[in-house]
C-alpha cells in the first residue's frame, strides 16, 4: 500500500528520535519502527530515554519519554549522536530534546499540543515554532490529535482510547517518510490486541491515516530510503543489553551442564536481568529475588557451593553492599559472576543515567588482598558473549568474576545474530570425582591454580570452606604466617594466569598509528565510529578497546609501548587510566573524560583526537 508522489532520496544512515509524554507510548512507537527497520534489512541500534520519575506531571519536561533509533546500510555501532528527525508530541518533548537534534533536522510536531497550556507546562515563555527558536530546522506541524480523532470517529471509541492511538499517527508519518511498509505493523496489532478487535481497527486506521496524510498533503518534498546493510547470512533479532546478559548466562548454564541460579535484588538499571530470568523457569532457571543485595550475593555463594552456575546482578550501590561477600567468594575460591550495570554515581547519584565509574570499585572495593577477574561488555549484543565468557572463566578457574556493563548497554538494543548453542565454546568446570581418595579441598590444578569443586550430595568429598584463611591443600583454617603469604600470592596468581585463557588485545587500525585511542566497556560503538571515520579521512589513529580488564591481555604492555601518543577515553573521571598507570607507569597517557551521565558524541571525540594529532 506504499504510494509515492515524491522523489526518493537514498541515505546511508539516519537517526530518528521519538519523544512524547510518558503516557504517549513512545517506547512502543520506537520499537515498532525498529521492527520495520529490521524487516528492511538495515543494521540498527536503539536507545530509550526514560524519565527518572515513573510518571511525572503530564506535559512537563521531567515527564518526557524518548526513543532513538539509528539505522543504516553500513554496520551501525551506536544508537546515534544527534537526530536527523525528531517527532515531538508536545512542547515539553521539544524542549527536552532540542539538544539532541542535528542542525537542519526535520522536526515533526503535533500542532494541537502546541498551545498556551502546553508552553506553560514545558516552561516556554513563547511559542517556539513562532519565536525563531526553530529557525534552521525543517518544521512540520501536523494536527496529530485532531486527525487521530477524525480517523477513528467511525469506531465510536472513548476519548482515552482514542488519544492512546495518536502515537500511531506520528508513526504513520515517519513510515511514509522512510518508504516503509505498514503491513508488518498491522500484523503486530492483530496479534497483540487479538482479544480486542476494536483496538486493532483503531490502531490500523490511525496508522494508515498518518501515512496517507503525509502522502496526500505532500508534507515532505522528498521521501527517503536506506538500503539494506550487508549483514552476514543468518538469523537475527533485536536485543537489549540486559536481555543479552540474561541469555548469555542461560547459554553458559547449558554449555557447562551446571544449573543456573541467580540471587538478586531489584535496582535500576539492572532489574531487567532478574526479570528476564524469572521468565525462564521453562529452562529450569532459578531466579531468587532476595530481601537485599547482600542476601542476593550470599545466596548465590550458597548455590555455588552446591554446584550451580551462580550469579548476582546489581548496579553500583548494590556492588558496594556486596563488597564483603565478594571477599568470601574469593577466599572460598568458588565460581560466582557478579554483574554490575553501572549508573551515575556516587551514592544514589543519577540512577537513570549511564557512567563507567565503578571500575576502581570493581578492582579494589574489598577488604584485604582480594583479586577477581573483571570483564567489561562492549555493546548490547556483546553482553551475551561477555556473560558467557564470564561464566566460563569463573567456572573453569574457580574464582569470582565481575562483569561490568552500563545503563546505556543495558537499555539500548542492537541487532544480534543468533548463535547456535552448540557452536559456543565448551565450558568444563573442574568437578571433583565421587570418592576420589586424593581429594583435598584446596589442592590445585597446576596450570590454572584452581581448586576442585566438590558438590554436596557427592559421596566421599565432604569438606568445609569458609572466610578464615585456609591452609593450602587441606583447606583447614590456618594462622600460619607463611601460608597466608603463599595463599595471597596464589589467589593473585590464579587470576593473573587467566591471561593465558583470554584472547590477546586487538587493535583497530595500524600498529604504528600516530595516536592510539584507548577505551573500555560500553563506549566501543562510538569509539569505533569515530576512529573509523577518521581513518577514512586518512588520519593516523588506531583504537585499542579493552574488554578484559583483570587480568589485562598478555600483549597489553607491548601494544601500548608501540605508541607515543595515547589517549584514554572514559565516561568517568579517569579510572582505567589510573589502572594503566599503575600497571604500566612507563608510558604517557592523556585522558578524555566526560562525567555528565551522557555518552560520548562522535563530534567531541573527533575534535579531541584531531587536537592531539596536531600537537
Amino acid at each position, binding site marked *: 500500500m506504499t504510494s509515492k508522489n515524491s522523489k526518493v532520496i537514498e541515505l546511508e544512515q539516519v537517526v530518528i528520535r521519538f519523544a512524547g509524554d510518558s503516557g504517549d507510548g513512545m517506547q512502543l512507537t520506537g520499537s515498532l519502527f525498529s521492527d520495520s527497520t529490521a524487516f528492511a534489512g538495515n543494521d540498527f541500534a536503539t536507545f530509550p530515554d526514560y524519565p527518572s520519575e515513573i510518571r511525572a506531571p503530564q506535559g512537563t519536561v521531567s515527564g518526557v519519554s524518548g526513543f532513538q533509533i539509528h539505522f543504516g546500510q553500513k554496520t551501525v555501532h551506536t544508537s546515534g549522536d544527534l537526530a536527523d528527525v525528531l517527532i515531538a508530541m508536545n512542547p515539553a518533548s521539544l524542549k527536552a530534546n532540542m539538544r539532541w537534534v542535528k542542525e537542519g533536522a526535520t522536526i515533526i510536531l503535533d500542532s494541537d499540543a502546541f498551545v498556551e497550556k502546553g508552553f506553560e507546562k514545558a516552561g516556554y515563555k513563547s511559542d517556539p515554532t513562532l519565536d525563531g527558536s526553530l529557525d534552521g530546522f525543517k518544521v512540520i506541524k501536523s494536527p496529530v490529535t485532531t486527525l487521530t480523532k477524525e480517523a477513528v470517529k467511525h469506531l465510536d471509541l472513548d476519548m482515552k482510547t482514542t488519544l492512546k492511538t495518536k502515537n500511531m499517527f506520528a508513526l504513520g508519518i515517519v513510515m511514509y517518510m522512510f518508504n516503509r511498509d505498514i503491513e508488518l505493523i498491522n500484523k503486530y496489532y492483530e496479534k497483540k490486541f487479538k482479544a480486542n478487535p476494536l483496538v486493532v481497527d483503531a490502531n490500523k486506521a490511525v496508522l494508515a491515516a498518518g501515512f496517507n496524510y503525509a502522502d496526500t498533503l505532500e508534507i515532505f518534498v522528498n521521501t527517503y530510503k536506506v538500503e539494506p546493510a550487508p549483514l552476514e547470512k543468518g538469523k*537475527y533479532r533485536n536485543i537489549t543489553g540486559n536481555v543479552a546478559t540474561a541469555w548469555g548466562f542461560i547459554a553458559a548454564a547449558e554449555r557447562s551442564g551446571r544449573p543456573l541460579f541467580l540471587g538478586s535484588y531489584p535496582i535500576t538499571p539492572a532489574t531487567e536481568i532478574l526479570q528476564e530470568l524469572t521468565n525462564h*523457569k521453562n529452562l529450569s532457571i*532459578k531466579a*531468587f529475588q532476595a530481601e537485599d543485595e547482600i*542476601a542476593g550475593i550470599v545466596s548465590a555463594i550458597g548455590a*555455588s557451593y552446591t554446584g550451580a552456575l551462580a550469579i548476582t546482578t546489581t548496579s553500583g550501590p548494590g556492588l558496594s553492599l556486596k563488597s564483603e561477600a565478594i571477599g568470601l567468594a574469593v577466599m572460598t575460591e568458588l565460581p560466582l559472576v557478579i554483574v554490575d550495570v553501572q549508573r551515575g554515581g556516587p551514592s544514589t547519584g543519577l540512577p537513570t543515567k549511564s557512567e563507567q565509574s565503578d571500575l576502581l570499585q570493581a578492582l579494589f572495593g574489598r577488604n584485604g588482598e582480594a583479586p577477581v577477574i573483571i570483564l567489561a561488555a562492549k555493546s548490547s549484543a556483546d553482553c551475551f558473549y561477555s556473560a558467557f565468557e564470564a561464566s566460563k572463566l569463573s567456572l573453569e578457574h574457580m574464582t569470582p568474576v565481575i562483569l561490568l556493563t552500563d545503563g546505556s548497554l543495558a537499555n539500548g538494543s542492537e541487532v544480534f545474530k543468533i548463535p547456535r548453542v552448540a557452536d559456543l565454546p565448551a565450558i568444563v568446570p573442574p568437578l571433583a570425582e565421587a570418592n576420589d581418595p586424593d581429594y583435598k579441598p584446596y589442592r590445585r590444578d597446576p596450570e590454572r591454580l584452581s581448586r576442585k569443586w566438590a558438590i554436596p550430595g557427592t559421596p*566421599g568429598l*565432604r569438606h568445609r570452606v569458609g572466610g578464615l584463611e585456609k591452609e593450602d591443600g587441606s583447606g583447614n583454617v590456618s594462622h600460619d604466617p607463611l601460608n597466608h603469604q603463599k595463599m595471597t600470592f596464589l589467589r593473585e596468581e590464579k587470576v593473573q594466569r587467566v591471561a593465558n585463557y583470554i584472547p590477546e588485545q586487538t587493535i583497530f587500525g595500524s600498529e604504528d598509528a600516530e595516536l592510539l585511542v584507548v577505551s573500555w566497556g560500553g563506549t566501543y560503538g562510538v569509539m569505533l565510529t569515530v576512529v573509523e571515520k577518521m581513518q577514512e579521512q586518512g588520519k593516523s589513529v588506531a583504537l585499542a578497546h579493552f574488554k578484559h580488564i583483570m587480568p589485562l591481555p598478555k600483549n597489553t604492555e607491548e601494544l601500548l609501548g608501540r605508541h607515543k601518543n595515547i589517549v584514554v577515553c572514559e565516561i568517568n573521571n579517569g579510572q582505567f587510566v589510573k589502572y594503566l598507570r599503575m600497571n604500566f607507569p612507563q608510558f604517557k597517557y592523556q585522558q578524555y573524560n566526560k562525567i555528565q551521565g551522557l555518552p560520548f558524541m562522535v563530534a567531541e571525540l573527533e575534535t579531541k583526537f584531531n587536537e592531539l594529532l596536531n600537537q
Partner: protein
Amino acid sequence: MENQIIETEIIQLTKEDFSSDQMVKWCPGCGDHAILHSVENVFPNLGIRKEDFVVVSGIGCSSRFPYYMNTYGVHSIHGRAAALATGVKLANPKLSVWMITGDGDCMAIGGNHFIHTIRRNIDINILLFNNKIYGLTKGQYSPTTPKGHKTKTSPQGTYERPFNPGELVIGAQGNFFARVLDTNPKGMTAVFMEAAKHKGTSLVEIMQNCVIFFNKAHELITSRETRDDNQLQIEHGKPLIFGKEKNKGIILKGTRLEVVTIGENGVTEADLLVHDQYEKDPGVHMMIARMMPPEFPVALGVIRSVAAETFEQSMMDSIAYEKEHSSIKTVDEMLNSGGTWTIE
C-alpha cells in the same frame, strides 16, 4: 570387577560418621560442646545419607560448629548464614540443610535474612545458640541481653529491651519454634529430631551458657534450686503443668495467661490450657513463647509446629509446570523466539 555390590540402601550411620578431625576449640565448660554432641547423635538417625547434610554458619563462637562436623559445610560471614543456607537449599532441595548461628549473628547483623528466611518458609533447620552475649568478640551485649545487664559496651547496663526469639519468629510468620536448654541432652535430641522432620523453616532456640562472658545467664531456669518453678516442659496435647510437685499450671483467663495451683481455689487439671502445637493461629503460641520468670515459667519444647508449603516446593512446582507448558523447551528455541528475521 564383577559382582560388586552397589550400595543403594541407606546404611545405619553412627556418631563417628560425623565427627571431624579438627580440634574443638571452645572454652572448657562452654554450652556449645553439649550441643555438638546432641547434633552428632541426631544426624545418624535421620535416615539421610551423610553426604546429603550441609551445615552452614555465620561468624561467632557458635559458628565454628561446621568445622567440627564431618559433613559438607560453610563457615560464612557474620550474619549471612540464613542467606547462604537459602542458596544451598534452593540450588538442591534434596539436601538436609542446618544453620548454626548465635544471637548476635542472626538477630543483630543477620536479623534481616533471619526474618525473611522464616517468612519464606524455606526448609532449613536453624539452631540458634542464645547465650545472650557476643562471645567471640569478648563480651558486648547482644539483641537478647536482658535490659539493664552490664557488659563491656553497657557499663551502666543496656538501654534496650531484648528480642524474644520466639516472638520475633512468630511475628515473621514462623511455623516452627522450639526452645531447649544446653544442659538437657535428651531434650535437645528430641527437639532436633522434630525440627529435622518439620517441612519448612524450623527454629530451635538453645539457651546456651557462655562461661566466660555471661556465665549463668540462664541460671534461673537451669539451676537445681530454681528450675522446677521456672521451667515448663510442654508437650502437644498435654496440659501446661510445672513445679516440683507438678501442681502448678497455666490457664488462659480472658485475654491473658495466668499461673494457677492445682487444688487451690477449686482449680483442677482440666482447667489448664492444653498445648496444641499444630494450631495455625499463633496468638496463644505467642503468649506461651513470651512466658518469662518471675511471673511465668519458661516454656521448653516444641511451642509451634504448623505445616505449610515451603518456598522451594512452590519454586520446583512452578518450574515443573513451566517446563511442561512452555512452548520453549531449549535454549536454542529461546534464542530464536519472538521477533527474528533472516538475511540470506
